[in-house]
């Protein structure tokens, strides 16, 4: 026997004062009484301080010394050699992917797995070390190696299922690293077996390569997984995961097989001492889910939008139901569908909306499309029954056209439903504040403030001077990266002549001739942007080309500040990028320190962490935004980026960006576990220990308690009688 804390044996010195007190106790308290007359009568039947009474005192001393001895031994934490040799190092990998929310096992697969782990912890042996790793989108060590069961239970209870895919393989690798070269290492994987479709690929790879190639194999595996996921969104008649792993996937079992007790599977590919034991908690439950849901603004219709939706029937029954589309809680469409077993159903829907907003898709009225079939087990995962997408709003813009008269110019603005056009044929006395001003030929000496589009200027202004006439200019240079030049080609436009313009300030050339003269330019003025097009609309065929309305549409969009047409929905667990253009600098950003010269880069682009941004989850949890990458977004629904607006009277938050997060993972929607995973599910019997599994100090404390009770009994006999 050895002691973990041998220094605690020094506590045995406490026996000395106990013995001293015992000896001192022989000198009893002397109490004066007026007479012993009655006490003599009390003890007249039995002599006082009989032999048994003295013996009881000695027994009491022995009981106290034994009690002390037991407590000292318990503090020294003794253990036997066989206990040290048989101690295990166990890592529990708990699958927290979305499929663990399935309710085919009451209350859910995740809760069943958690309960199973709790039962395992009940039988933990002395000196066993246990760590807990959650396998969500990224493996995470919830608790490092610990032997304290209550701590393990608290850590286990803190784990919650996510709405993401499972990185089970990475979690197992992490678990193996935690175990290291311990001789009795075990990895216990509690999952529903669905993610093992990918794990099987890895296992095959691992058998063929050595440890040095392991990282490369993981990359290949990830690529394989990504390709499987990508193919899920494509329209096909069979499940993509089944296609990509057709050799490994067999028909799922039809009966409940969760927590099967069987022979444990030992994976010895990487480390011969590490056992990987899978516990599969799943049934062959069916499910129908939304595996793809995206929306974007139409390229043709300024107020239109397009929706791409994909459904997957991960069951062995034909399913019928309907897909409800709601835009900002207002129904916009109801699409009935019928799905064959393992069919992926894809539709593209076009709708119109000026305001845009949150588009939500919901599966409803699901039923088995076959007689005498059980409709309760066809959709057991609610996570993928809903999906969201963000449709950017459109802004109506006021446009003032100052022109001596050009029908094409007026019509190209009037054709846009997002524009309110006002036309005047001479320069006004005052300029509207919030309008885009289009100056055609008529140019004031001092350009007005705000957003300006200048076409074919005839005279000089404070920003430029008119030069010579350019004969037959040919546009050969275009700024392809500028959003102002998207879908525009000017090289085939017939331009008889154009004005040469000499800009006073630095101008960004958007289009230029072969000789270098600027035809279309952007002036970054301090009082508003200004676009200058030096093409004569009457003498060129630009007004007849499709390029012209596209150019005007680009200019209007650029003035409106709309970053793009598509705000893609994010898959659960992924990161999203922050749109810094939509975020206003805070007061803190504008504050300058008079004693320290500010960094010009910081003045122009203050750090994200100083802008007071908060990431608000669908459940209402807030986290600070510290970089342009936000996330991981591991909960389905609408995530908001809010910015605190410090007003003079009250502070309020403003939503500056929204993200739609969907499960969008066919592998997670397919709840049917592999038959191989079920067959290899390990039982709890081999993991739990025998009755005598507690440490020695525990039994010492129990014995000490017994001696304490004995001493109490003796005291009662001695004093209370």
């Amino acid at each position, binding site marked *: 026997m050895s002691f973990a804390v041998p220094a605690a044996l020094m506590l045995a010195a406490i026996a000395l004062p106990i013995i001293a007190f015992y000896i001192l106790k022989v000198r009893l*308290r002397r109490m004066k009484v007026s007479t*012993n007359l009655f006490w003599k009568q009390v003890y007249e039947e039995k002599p006082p301080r009989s032999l048994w009474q003295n013996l009881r005192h000695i027994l009491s001393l022995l009981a106290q010394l034994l009690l002390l001895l037991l407590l000292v031994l318990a503090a020294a934490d003794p253990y036997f050699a066989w206990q040290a040799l048989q101690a295990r190092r166990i890592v529990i990998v708990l699958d927290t992917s979305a499929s663990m929310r399935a309710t085919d096992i009451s209350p859910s697969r995740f809760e069943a797995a958690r309960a199973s782990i709790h039962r395992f912890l009940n039988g933990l042996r002395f000196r066993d070390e246990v760590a807990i790793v959650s396998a969500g989108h990224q493996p995470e060590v919830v608790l490092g190696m610990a032997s304290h069961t209550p701590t393990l239970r608290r850590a286990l209870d803190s784990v919650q299922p996510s709405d993401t895919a499972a990185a089970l393989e990475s979690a197992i690798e992490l678990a193996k690293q935690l175990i290291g070269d311990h001789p009795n290492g075990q990895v216990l994987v509690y999952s529903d077996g669905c993610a093992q479709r990918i794990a099987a690929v890895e296992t095959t790879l691992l058998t063929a390569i050595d440890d040095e190639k392991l990282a490369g194999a993981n990359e290949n595996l990830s690529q394989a997984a990504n390709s499987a996921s990508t193919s899920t969104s494509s329209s096909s008649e069979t499940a993509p995961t089944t296609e990509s792993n057709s050799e490994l996937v067999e028909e799922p079992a039809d009966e409940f097989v969760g927590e099967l007790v069987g022979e444990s599977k030992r994976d010895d590919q990487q480390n011969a001492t590490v056992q990987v034991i899978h516990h599969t908690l799943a049934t062959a439950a069916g499910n129908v889910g939304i595996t793809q849901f995206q929306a974007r603004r139409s390229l043709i219709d300024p107020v239109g939008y397009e929706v791409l939706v994909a459904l997957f029937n991960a069951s062995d029954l034909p399913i019928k139901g309907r897909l409800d589309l709601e835009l900002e809680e207002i129904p916009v469409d109801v699409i009935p569908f019928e799905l064959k077993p393992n069919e992926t159903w894809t539709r593209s829907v076009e709708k119109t909306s000026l305001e845009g907003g949150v588009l939500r898709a919901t599966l409803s009225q699901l039923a088995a499309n076959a007689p005498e079939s059980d409709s309760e087990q066809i959709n057991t995962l609610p996570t993928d029954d809903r999906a969201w997408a963000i449709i950017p709003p459109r802004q109506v813009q006021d446009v003032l056209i100052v022109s001596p008269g050009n029908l094409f110019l007026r019509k190209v603005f009037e054709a846009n439903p997002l524009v309110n056009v006002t036309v005047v044929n001479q320069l006004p006395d005052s300029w509207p504040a919030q309008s885009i001003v289009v100056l055609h030929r008529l140019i004031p000496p001092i350009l007005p403030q705000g957003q300006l589009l200048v076409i074919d200027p005839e005279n000089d202004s404070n920003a430029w001077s008119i030069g010579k006439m350019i004969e037959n200019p040919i546009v050969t240079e275009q700024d392809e990266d500028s959003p102002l030049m998207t879908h525009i080609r000017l090289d085939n436009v017939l331009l008889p002549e154009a004005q040469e313009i000499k800009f006073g300030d630095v101008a960004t050339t958007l289009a230029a001739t072969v000789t270098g003269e600027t035809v279309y330019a952007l002036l970054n003025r301090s009082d508003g942007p200004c676009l200058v097009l030096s093409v004569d609309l009457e003498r060129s065929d630009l007004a007849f080309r499709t390029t012209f309305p596209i150019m005007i549409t680009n200019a209007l969009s650029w003035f409106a500040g709309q970053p793009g047409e598509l705000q893609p929905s994010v898959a659960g667990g992924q990161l999203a990028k922050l749109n810094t253009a939509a975020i206003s600098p805070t007061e803190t950003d504008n504050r300058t320190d008079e004693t320290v010269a500010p960094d010009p880069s910081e003045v122009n682009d203050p750090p994200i962490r100083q802008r007071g941004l908060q990431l608000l989850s669908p459940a209402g949890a807030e986290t600070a935004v510290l970089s342009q990458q936000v996330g991981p977004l591991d909960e389905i629904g609408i995530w908001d980026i809010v910015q605190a607006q410090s007003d003079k009277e009250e502070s309020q938050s403003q939503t500056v960006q929204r993200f739609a997060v969907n499960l969008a993972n066919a592998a997670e929607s397919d709840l049917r576990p592999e038959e191989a995973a079920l067959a290899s599910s390990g039982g709890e019997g081999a993991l739990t220990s025998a009755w005598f599994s507690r440490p020695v100090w525990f039994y010492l404390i129990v014995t000490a308690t017994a001696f304490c009770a004995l001493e109490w009994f003796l005291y009662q006999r001695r004093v209370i009688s």
Partner: protein
Amino acid sequence: MLFPPDFLTRLEYLSIMSKRVFRGSLLAQRRTMQMGSGIEFSDHREYSVGDDLRYLDWNIYARHGDLLLKRFQEERDLHVYLLLDCSRSMAFGKPAKFDLARHLTAALAYIALADLDRIAVVAFADGIISEFPITRGKARILPLMRYLESLPTTGQDTNLGRTVRGLLHRGSRSGLAVVISDLFDEHGFQAGLDQLRYRRFDAHVLQLHDPLEADPQLLGDVELEDIENDSVRMVTVTEKNLRNYKRLFQEHQFSVREYCTNYGLGCTQSPSVVPFDELVMRMMRMSAVGR
């Protein structure tokens, strides 16, 4: 200081109260139980040869022919003997029983002296320790108080029987005998009281005890030291022992009370925390009810 400055004032008040409330029933106003040559007729008895013919009731003889002798109650000064227990057990308690006993002795003596009775104080333990000789007159209260102040608790025992025997051997005249003691007498308190009864003493028992004697706060292993004889007894006091002790103590108190009731003796039992004047009033009230 045993006697506070206002002690005499309280005694005077007590004396006045005793005369007003219990007029004709106290001490000197009592008639002795002796038949003798007094002038107050008591009863008749049969004539026997040798009796003084002067006391023959001739009227009855003339009417009925019976020879009856007239008896008269003898009128003599009442002798009050205050037997004060000075054993060391009387020093027990806070305040000590002995202090209350001396207060009571002084109070009773003052009342008696105020009624022109004769008093004597006999301090006893395992025998007579000392004696304040028989005296009369109210002025003797101060020497008596000095005598009481100088009394120590002493002796190795309490022996009321030996004390009474000593008292009787001195040829003391019968009278009122007040025994002020805790009566923790291993020889039995009955022997002393019996002798007083036999000698036609009008006896009254004033039994004092400390509250801790009735309900001792003891538990566990202790050495019990008898302060009377310094004997030590190592015992383990349990709850059961305590219950037995209390039972025996109450039985002792009851036996004293029962003895006095059976033989017509006055008996007053009190804890030592009661003020002396209250106790005297209670004692006199009980005497009045008894008569």
